[in-house]
């Protein structure tokens, strides 16, 4: 009896010690993530300027569907997502497979060089890209000198090319980041698998699609989800390269939320509704990505 008592006391003590280690982190995440998340949900049912808010039910949500600026922002964000994320993942996969070649020389140099863009701040590289791609910027100068174009491309001021500029910029910044994940996963694959495939006469592309891609699937899923979440929140680049223009041609959802809250007459309620559209999109897209990858994994 006495023994079980002291054992119990020891266990309670150890449980309490365990909780005390994690407590601060748990509190901070609840206060700065989950509580604001709930607040945003409540806000999304309110309307008004500044702090004069009143409940208006689903008004904000029905406003979303007829809000042209919102629809344009969603469209732009999805164009970035659908073009840039696959492009970047394929490029990063391809580079990492090349870098994983055991006979390749200058491996360290190539890896460092391609990873280098990750050290820049989003703002700093955005400003650099803005000038590189300006009307009389270096990119146009070089294209003209090489006779690849007959007139300068309106990278920043044309709705189509402005989107391309944003896509080029994000790809430059993040390809190396994704490459590192693939490279580490590739290093964990046993070389004998490839040797066996080679003996069986499998071509390089057969090896890539038959061995590399299936074995890397969990990492590809991880990077595609993080890239999707990142792209849905795209802000710094667009804000600093094009300011969302020309017109609203490059504006993203995050930027629209920022404008609604801090640029126009502060409509926090409606801005919160728009922000919940991103929450829903992230949840849906992550679910789909899990499903697609999960089904094939069996």
């Amino acid at each position, binding site marked *: 009896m006495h023994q079980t008592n002291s054992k119990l006391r020891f266990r309670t003590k150890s449980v309490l010690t365990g909780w005390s280690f994690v407590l601060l*982190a748990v509190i*901070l995440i609840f206060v700065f993530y989950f509580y604001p998340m709930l607040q945003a949900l409540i806000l999304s049912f309110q309307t008004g300027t500044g702090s004069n808010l009143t409940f208006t039910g689903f008004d904000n949500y029905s406003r979303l569907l007829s809000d042209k600026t919102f629809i344009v922002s969603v469209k732009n964000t999805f164009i970035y997502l659908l073009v840039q994320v696959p492009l970047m993942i394929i490029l990063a996969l391809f580079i990492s497979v090349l870098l994983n070649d055991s006979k390749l020389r200058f491996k360290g140099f190539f890896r460092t*060089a391609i990873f280098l863009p990750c050290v820049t*701040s989003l703002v700093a590289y955005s400003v*650099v890209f803005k000038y590189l791609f300006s009307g009389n910027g270096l990119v146009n100068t070089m294209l003209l000198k090489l006779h690849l174009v007959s007139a300068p491309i309106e990278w920043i001021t044309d709705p189509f090319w402005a989107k391309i500029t944003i896509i080029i910029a994000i790809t*430059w910044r993040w390809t190396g980041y994704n490459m590192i994940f693939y490279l580490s996963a590739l290093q964990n694959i046993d070389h004998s698998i490839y040797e066996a495939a080679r003996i069986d006469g499998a071509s390089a592309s057969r090896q890539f699609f038959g061995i590399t891609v299936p074995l890397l699937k969990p990492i590809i899923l991880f990077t595609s989800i993080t890239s999707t979440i990142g792209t849905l929140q795209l802000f710094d680049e667009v804000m600093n390269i094009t300011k969302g223009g020309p017109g609203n041609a490059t504006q993203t959802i995050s930027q629209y939320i*920022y404008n609604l809250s801090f640029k126009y007459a502060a409509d926090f309620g409606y801005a919160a509704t728009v922000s919940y559209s*991103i929450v829903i999109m992230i949840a849906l897209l992550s679910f789909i990505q899990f499903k697609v990858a999960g089904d094939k994994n069996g």
Partner: protein
Amino acid sequence: MAKSKRFFMYLFLSIAAIVSIFPFLWMVVSSTNKSVDVTRGRLLPGTHLLENLRKLLDTTDLQLSLMNSAKISITTTLLALLIASLAGYGFEVFRSRSKDIVFNILLLSMMIPFAALMIPLYRMFGQISNVFPWMGIDTMTSVILPTVTTAFLIFFFRQSTKMFPKELLEAGRMDGLSELGIFLRIYLPTMKTTYAAGAIITFMSSWNNYLWPLIVLQTPQTKTMPLLISTLGSGYAPDYGMIMIAIVIGTIPTALVFFVMQKQFVAGMIGSVK
């Protein structure tokens, strides 16, 4: 056949490397040139570095922004490492079913977009300003608090704790160390590389943070480097040489951290997904 394949391999990687490095080179070269030469596309180093720097110092409060950024990033990094490593250690060493559930709930916070948090957070700090102005809007605290704890870093430390030899833990208990003593005197020194990797990741994201400081820091006295660079770049008649030197200076800390601790950085990134 094999030879031409090799050739294309090197060609492709070289192009990728040049494209990756070129904007850096251009930014460094441009910081030594006159604004006109930058627009003319001059690619050779010039002699205007000091002049550009002087102009930057005269027209902006560069030192103040650097100090603000340094204070915020260093404080965030130290606090983040302490909080996350305690939690990661706690979740792994004192494992229980209820803790696993809480841990999984914390992981969900990684899916929450910042866009959904910024308005409520802004209002929260607005209310705090009325009571405790020293931690409300426009203070260092308001920048640090919401970014100091991330589920990612807790996850990162928990994963690494799995590799921590449990015999050391038992040895510490036998020696009569308290649980906190074991953490501080055995775990912390053993896990140096994990802390280094965590520090790099946190320092970089804190130094480069833009959207939240843009919202919450409102006076010139609290401006951080990304905010300074952003305002320089938005002018109508930009002085390119001067802006480039500002960008170079703003990039040096993270580039330095990256080059000095490259191995830990890559290890840290990789460790995070294993």
